[in-house]
Each structure stands twice: as C-alpha cells, then as structure tokens.
C-alpha cells in the first residue's frame, strides 16, 4: 500500500464564544489529509475557517473536537509541553511579512532564535547556519546584519520563509503567503516555495483565497465554506470538473478567464449565525427544500474527489 499520510485531520471543530455569548463554529467538522511532499490548498472566502483550520493543525489554537494525526501520532489533545518535539517539524509562514518579523531584531537575530529556542548547534556554528538559510531563500549573506524595515515586501517574505526553514521542518503551512505581494514578486515567491519543496521534500498546506495561484502550486484542493469542506479533489478535477455549486461559482468569479460568469447573490453569512441545513443554500442556484433542512454529508466520488451536496449523485 501507499505510505501513510504525514497529516490526517478528522472531524476537526474549533468553536469560539462570540461577542453576544453565542458559539461561533469557525471550523465545524473538517477532514483533511496530506501526503509527504504534497501541496494541499485550502481555499475559501473570508470567514470560511481556512486560517483557523491551519492554526488548529499547528495547535496555535486549541481544537474543540476532532483528531489531528501528525506522522501517525495523535496530537489534538497534546499539551504545549508535549507539542515541543513537534513544533520544529511543523512551521507557518504568514501573509504579512511586515507584521510577523520583530522590527527590533536583525535578520541574524530573527533566524538564530529557532536554533536558540530548540538548543540546536553551538553559538559558533550559528553564523554558518544563518548564511545557509539566507542562500537557500536567495538573499545575500550581508542581509544578516540588517533590520526588517530595510527590506522590500518580497525580501521580507523570504526572511519569513528562511525562519520557517531553520529547523528543517516536514510540514509548512502558508497562510496567504503571497497575497500581500505585487504580481512580479508573487511569481518569485511562488517559484521559491516550489524549488524548496523539491529540494527539501517539504509538505505544504497553502491557505489562500487566490484560486489562480492555487491552480499553479496545489496537488489537491479543499474548498471551505462557513467552517466546512464542501469539496476536495485533485487539482485538475477541482478546476476543470468542479461538482459543488459553490466551487463552480467561486471559479467563475475569478476575473480574466473569459468565461461566462455566474454571479452569486448575497454575501457570505456571518459564521456566528450560519443558515440551517447546508450553509450555502441561501445563495445556491440549485438548492432544493431538503438543503434548508439537513446539512449534506461528504460523499466520495472516487479518484480522491469528494463533495458535500444533496444535488450531487455519487
């Protein structure tokens, strides 16, 4: 059989107490799996729970319910202390390279911190490790002595990537890693991430609202809507044979494809007050009465393609 997945998430729920005292079901029953060396993209609009899912997998947020197996070990209920050995194996890159680097530290200080925290190497060999990281992400070694504000957005994102790579992780979660960058710089960073994946055998979870970028880098895609995965499929199937009406609408909304657009009515509902039944039904062009009553179960269509919709026959 095939190698077991690096990451397996089942029935993940993250609920918060909202401002009005009600429960916000930010993530409400998410199943995902990620093979080694694979890139899984999680896409969806604001409030769909994609960022919360990423943070819960890294245990930066406490999951309310569900299972997270990393390399075969159940970590969903691990304490912070028990998580320590896993921390170096899973890293995150943030959207905003401006906000995620300490402005008072030099690049050398920023890149040294992971080694110091995890007690890796000696003080003497750290400059070499830092120089190696900078080379890896295409920055000059002289960058080590400078401060984050001295760099452009694209260069800062390279610093963020270098920091994520410091401890030789297996899994990197990128939360909109190229969304704040200009188009010409975006291409540089997308290519860098792909090259690093090939060279280091990394597995990626890419959280993004940008479907065009996702179509270039993902092996598989999970589409989220209001806390749930509505469709999962290999890249080509998701982009060229989408089955869920939300996925279809999302794809047709991407500008610049010259396709007939199917414009959805209404906004994404407030996650604190999701509609009954299928959360998408008020905006769905093909909804039937059942959709307002019962949330559809995920159905396997074969070939790694699954969808949660009453109107899709398996």
């Amino acid at each position, binding site marked *: 059989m095939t190698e077991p997945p690096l990451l397996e998430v089942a029935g993940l729920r993250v609920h918060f107490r909202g401002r009005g005292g009600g429960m916000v079901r930010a993530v409400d029953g998410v199943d995902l799996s990620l093979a080694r060396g694979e890139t899984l993209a999680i896409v969806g*609009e*604001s409030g769909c729970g994609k960022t919360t899912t990423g943070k819960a997998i890294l245990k930066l947020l406490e999951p309310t319910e569900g299972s997270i197996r990393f390399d075969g070990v159940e970590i969903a209920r691990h304490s912070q202390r028990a998580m320590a050995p896993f921390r170096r194996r899973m890293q995150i890159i943030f959207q905003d390279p401006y906000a995620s680097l300490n402005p008072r530290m030099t690049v050398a200080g920023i890149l040294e911190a992971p080694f110091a925290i995890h007690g890796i190497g000696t003080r003497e060999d750290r400059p070499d490790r830092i120089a190696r990281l900078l080379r890896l992400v295409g920055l000059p070694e002289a960058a080590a002595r400078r401060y984050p504000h001295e760099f*452009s*957005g*694209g*260069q800062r994102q390279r610093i963020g990537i270098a920091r994520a790579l410091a401890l030789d992780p297996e899994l990197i979660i990128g939360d909109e890693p190229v969304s704040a960058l*200009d*188009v*010409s*710089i*975006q*291409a*540089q960073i*997308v*290519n860098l991430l*792909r090259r690093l994946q090939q060279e280091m055998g990394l597995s990626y979870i890419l959280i993004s*609202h*940008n*479907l*065009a*970028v996702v*179509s*270039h880098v993902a092996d598989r895609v999970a589409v989220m809507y209001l806390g749930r995965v509505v469709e999962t499929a290999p890249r*080509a199937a998701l*982009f*060229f044979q989408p089955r869920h009406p939300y996925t279809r*609408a*999302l*794809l*047709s*909304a*991407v*500008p*610049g*494809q010259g396709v007939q*657009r199917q*414009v*959805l*009515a209404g*906004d*994404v509902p407030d996650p604190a007050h999701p509609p009954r039944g299928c959360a998408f039904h008020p905006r769905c062009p093909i909804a039937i009465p059942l959709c307002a009553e019962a949330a559809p179960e995920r159905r396997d269509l074969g070939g790694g393609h699954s969808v949660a919709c009453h109107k899709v026959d398996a």
Partner: protein
Amino acid sequence: MPPAEAAPLLAVRELAVHIPDPPHLLRAVDGISFDLDRGETLGLVGESGSGKTMTAMALMRLLEPPLSRLPTGEVLLDGEDLMRLPEGAMAALRGHRLSMVFQEPMTSLNPVMRIGAQIAEPLRRHLGLFRAEAAARAEEMLRLVGLPDPARQARAWPHELSGGMRQRAMIAIALACRPALLIADEPTTALDVTVQAQILELLRELQRDMGTAVLLITHDLAVVEENAHRVAVMYAGRIVETGPVEAIFTAPRHPYTAGLLASLPRIREEPEPWLPEIPGMVPGAGDRPRGCAFAPRCTRVISGCVAEAPPLLGEPHAAACWNPLHD
C-alpha cells in the same frame, strides 16, 4: 459638436507630483498624460509604488498639505483645468461632476451618519434638493446599487453592513449626482472574489446606464482585462504603455507589461511548473536610475536605455521603450 470630434471628457497633461525629501526628490508621479472619453473605462494599473493612487489623489485634489501644493501639470475636465480652480470651486465639483470610490469603504464612510443621509448629502449640497426629495433619491440609489430593502438600509449605520454592502453604499454616494467621471481606486481589492464579481458587474451596469467615464485604478491585471476599454500601465511614476485592452493583453510592447502578464498565474489544464519572474524589484521613488527606470530589471536592455528615459510613442497603442516587443 459631432461626437467623433469631441474633446475628451478628461485630459491629463504632464501631471507630476515631486516630493522634496532632502537630499532626494521623490518623483511619485513623474509627468503623465492621458485622455478619458465620456462613458469610457480606462484601467490604470501598476504595482505598489508606481504612483497610481497618488495620481488619483492629485486628480481629485485630495492630497493634504503640504503635499497639496506639489502637483504640477494640467487636469482638464471638459476643458476646465482643475489644477487652477480655487478650493471652493473644486469642492463644488467633487461628488458632483467627479467622484471617487476607495478600497476601504469603512474608512471612507462616515461612521456616525446613517447610510441614507450620506447619500442625500451631496444631492442636497450640489443639486439643491430638499430633504424629502433627497431622501427619496437616496433610497432610489440604494435600490439601484442592489441593496435589499432600501428603505430599511437607508436608516442603517455603516457598521451594520457587510463589506460588499458598504462598497455598494459607497458607490451609491459617489454616483448620486450622476457624475461625468468616477475614479475607482482598488474598489474590489478588499472584497471576496464572489463579492468582487458582483461589484464589478454593478459598476459596469451603472456606467452603461449613466454614461459615466471610469478611471479604474488597480494592481489586478485580470480585473482590468475584463472591465476596461483602454489600459495605462504605470511603472515608477510614469505611464510606460497605453492602448486598447485587447492590444495590451495580446501584444504588449513594453517589456514590463509583457513581464507582468507572463507572471500572472492563470487557471490552466497543464500549468507551467515555473511562473516567469521579473527579477529584482521596483526602485524607490528617491533612487530611480537615470534613463529608463525599468532598465535594471529588463531583459531587452540596450545601450540607449540607461542614457535617456524613452518617450511614450505610438497611437493608439503607445509604449515608452527604446527596444519594444512586437515591433
């Protein structure tokens, strides 16, 4: 006047915003010229630091002191130079003959004023409508921009609306007096993609019905491709290429435009594994190279490029390049 011979609605001539920052001179906008016809959409595209937002602020005369004294050049709206108008006369035009929609509707709506009152305000001020009349027109505008239950939404506060609904309300305010020119600065950048599609469709419909000319400022080439008739590409404070949208997207002449289009990811059956990159980065407004500002990143650079900045040549498709493509 026959329409074919008619002067453009907007004619911008050698507009510049040079900001003294000793020992530098930041050439944020560095002498740009373009025309915009009635009912036409011109997409002004560029990456951060290209000067596109500064251009919009200068056109609207919305720069704050001390920046407000810096713009030079001519901005002719129906032949009248906005740059020479006293502030009082300019204020009478803003929201009336020309309007602006910003990226962040929440920061440009008045948080302590009901939506309906914010739409009625320019109607009363510029068109002299009485309260009841203006309120009725405000509701009509809300219906036009697709807000459900306009009578109720007119009494809503900005914070009670979603992002997409706020942007619709902003558009209702901007278009209330049926301006001849709408400047839309990244109007959908803060919105989700399905909401972006709604808002762009709404803008197209309203433009068609009202005959408004739109200056659509965005970093998103795909948005421009679908929504503009003509395009002007800015780089480092200048327009480096301009022309009809099909020509720009199918046969770009400036290497920067070509590079931008190539690096734009597209949804394809068989995507290329590597996205074409433009090496390097945009130079700062204070350390632009002599000659063509794109030369240090350009693969087609020749000796003349570093000596002198190329003029924007060609009609209707113009490029500022000493060694253009598709020649």
